């Protein structure tokens, strides 16, 4: 993640008008037809499916294939002063870390943490973004002012500092924050990431709603006396599906990097839970990576490939959902 926050790939341009309809095929059929032709995106999608499978089956792989628990300590793989002696080998595919733990097993367990946090936080951010963004766009007036300003405000905060501040404050008491609602660990990290990502979705949704709010079919629904909630739910939202899917997908990789950055800085995910960011910061301590390069290389590659795959899939989705791409495509 760049220092400048999570802007990352989220605000990528040229995104998402509604797919135009062609006679005889639903927009989704068209979308799938186009997406299938994008071999890079499809490949990335396959990679993600495999990764998810690996993450889900990690306990089985660890138990039955590698026979190493992620937290098992093989201390005879360390020398007298605690440096790992064993690099990538038949026994330890990705080598061992400074506690004598299997880096391969921890890397696949790390995928669980990464995917879980990123998907959950993106989910919350999307829900919050849709809710507030569509209210702001549809209702306008003071509601719009308040929500838009809240968006501006959240985007003006030094995100990392605030995240660390909140994480630190919520990590001390055993019961966590907000009367136990936010528990230290995965739920805390998820909440923090969602808190700082919803404005990106909110902003886009608001813009989209603004453009369709005065379209005829909405006017018609209004004229027929439909309630605001019903209009938003039945008429506005379905038309936002495409951009939301695209931007939601593109936020996932930046949230993966967000989680990794927090773990790298040592806040959030509990220390014994395998996490790629934490593994990288372990490798960075005391120049350890100069004697045990595998501690830096493997979790880093896992992180890069995963975010790359999500970005590729997100790009593919956007191209497939954007009618203009066909012009030159």
């Amino acid at each position, binding site marked *: 993640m760049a220092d400048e926050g999570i802007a990352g790939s989220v605000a990528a341009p040229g995104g998402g008008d509604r797919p135009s309809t062609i006679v005889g095929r639903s927009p989704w059929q068209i979308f799938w037809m186009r997406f299938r032709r994008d071999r890079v995106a499809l490949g990335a999608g396959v990679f993600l499916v495999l990764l998810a499978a690996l993450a889900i089956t990690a306990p089985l792989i660890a138990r039955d294939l590698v026979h190493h628990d992620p937290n098992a300590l093989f201390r005879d793989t360390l020398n007298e002063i*605690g*440096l790992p002696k064993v690099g990538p080998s038949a026994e330890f595919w990705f080598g061992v870390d400074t*506690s004598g733990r299997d880096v391969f097993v921890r890397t696949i367990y790390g995928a669980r943490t990464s995917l879980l946090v990123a998907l959950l936080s993106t989910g919350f951010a999307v829900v919050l973004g849709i809710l507030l963004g569509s209210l702001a766009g549809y209702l306008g007036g003071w509601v719009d002012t308040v929500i838009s300003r809240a968006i501006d405000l959240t985007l003006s905060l030094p995100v990392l500092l605030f995240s660390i501040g909140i994480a630190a404050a919520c990590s*001390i008491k055993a019961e966590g924050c907000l009367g136990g609602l936010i528990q230290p660990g995965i739920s805390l990290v998820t909440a923090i990431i969602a808190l700082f990502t919803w404005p990106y979705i909110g902003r886009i949704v608001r813009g989209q709603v603004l453009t369709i709010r005065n379209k005829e079919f909405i006017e018609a629904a209004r004229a027929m006396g439909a309630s605001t909630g019903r209009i938003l739910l039945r008429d506005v939202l379905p038309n936002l599906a495409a951009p939301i899917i695209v931007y939601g997908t593109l936020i996932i990789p930046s949230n993966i990097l967000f989680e990794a950055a927090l773990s790298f800085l*040592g806040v959030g995910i509990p220390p*014994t839970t395998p996490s790629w960011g934490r593994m990288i910061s372990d490798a960075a301590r*005391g120049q350890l990576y100069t004697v045990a390069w595998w501690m830096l290389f493997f979790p880093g590659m896992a992180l890069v490939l995963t975010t790359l795959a999500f970005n590729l899939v997100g790009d593919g989705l956007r191209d497939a959902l954007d009618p203009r791409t066909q012009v030159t495509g």
Partner: protein
Amino acid sequence: MKRHVTLVALLASLALVAAACARGEEPTETGPTGPTATGEIPTGGILREETTDFGFTNAFDPTGEYLGTAWAIYGNFLLRGLVSYPWLPGEKGGNEPVPDLATDLGEVSADGLTIKFTLKDGVMWQPPLNRPVTSQDVAFAFQRINTKSLIAQYGNYYCGTIVGMDCEGKSQDDPIEGIETPDEKTIIFHLERPTGDFLYRLAQPAAAPVPPEVAGCFDKAGEYGRYVMSNGPYMLLGSDELDISSCDTLEPIKGYDPDKFMYVVRNPNYDQSTDENRKNYIDGWSYVINTNLDDIYNRVLNGEIDIAHGAPPAAILQQYLTNPDLKDNLKTNSGDRTWYITMNLIVPPFDDIHVRKAVNYVVDKAAMLQATGGPTTGEIATTIEPPTVLPDLADYDPYATPNHAGDVELAKEEMRQSKYDSDGDGVCDDPVCDNVLMINRNYEPWTEYTPILTENLKQIGINLKVRELDVGTAYTTIQTMSNLIPIAANAGWGKDYASPFGFDYFLFSTAGLSCEGAVNYSNIGLDAELAKECGDEVYEAWKAATDNGKNPLPNVDADMEACVAKPFGPEYNACWAALDRKIMEEIVPWVPYRWGSQNTVLADTVVAWEYDQSAGWTAYSRTAVNNGLTMDEVAQV
């Protein structure tokens, strides 16, 4: 604790600074390259040192400053007290007070309640003060200690001991009843009770004289730290330019920037003939903040700087241990410091002594030492006080396991006797053993302890949930009683001075209990009254742990009082040794796992080096370099 390790290492990624006893290591007064050809130690040059953070606890104001490094700086360079230390390692008497500003170790009255000192002639304050040090300057130091707003962090060694001192004073100008200065050269202390280790307390930097014309301008904690005046062999660079005509004209000394550097140069008013213990080979010392810990050690390796304190990160330590040319450049000395895991007597499952004993058996202390960086960084601790402080306990190991690697069977044997193992399989099966919160520090080697302890305790059914916090937050978290932290691995304790009293009085007595800022983390001796005062949660926990007060928590206050009253010497030590055994076997608040070493890394430019046991740091006044530098070439003011 002397916050030595704790604060120096504030930046996350730091290695620990402590270090164990290198009994058996050849005491040496020569550096890596040995003495020069003629056998003479050269003078001149600047000793260049870097650190990641000064870590001062009171902004370098001697009245409150509690950091070991600062004590070494005061003692070797700036402040001469009535008594001080010879700046030598323990085996050469480095822990024994010697006369410094005073002509002798004082005349003690028959009842032990009065001590009189006479000041040497010829000890002067640095420019621009240019006047002799007087007994009133010494008395003024105590007036400062007694002033509440100045926050003397170890004022408890004087308040309650010297007549008229309560550390509640309103003004530093108020004289103290129990301190008499009949003339400029004489000072008499009146004590409340005979105090065997009073000389040690006088040797502390807060008791060294302070000039009222400068220090008197500052009545808030820490402020004087940027104006410290010297009566020792060196002074802060630029401090001689201070305009002392009034308080308003004082400007912070330019040679000390709390966030960048500290430079000391020779004090022209110092007379070597008045000082037997400081050798003062170097022309100056530069102490610079470098936030890149690895780079500091790389720079020592390259000879770009001369010295660094603390064990280098493992990747660099490896070079020192394996390269024969470097071997002598890494010094290992006793740090007089115990690292331990503390367990809370009022929080399940540690409210059961058998669980606490089981933990003592199950922890793999050998793995913890290995994770710290091996034998260079210390030796395995088997009891509370390191043998360097209390030799009586040298071979005592109440929870011995093979190779100190822990013994699951012995641990299960204990667990079986606890109330949390209902089926008797030696594994805790009570829900209180799930998600047991453990506080730890968030940098190495502590982060390396997290996986070890998690795996160790899992074997007896205790599932830890570890919070890693920065060192300051970790301490304040376990110091706040209402947090009810069950177990913590962040704690360490170093001596203030080499007496068992100075080592463990507050750790286990009720004097160390308070709702905030408690240091008796295990709550030994906690009673209903204080538990109530610290909040409902604490009181409830206390009631549950004591069966509504029917089985009160163990209390060692009386034992401690008895030991304090013993005459200083073998009997005194024996008393404390017996108390330590009692605590280790009948109360079991700790798992002591390492007696930390102090490591020092030297460049080849250091041609003479000595360890000062009293501060657990380099004896700067006995260290020499051959780099031929002058302060003009080094200082970047």
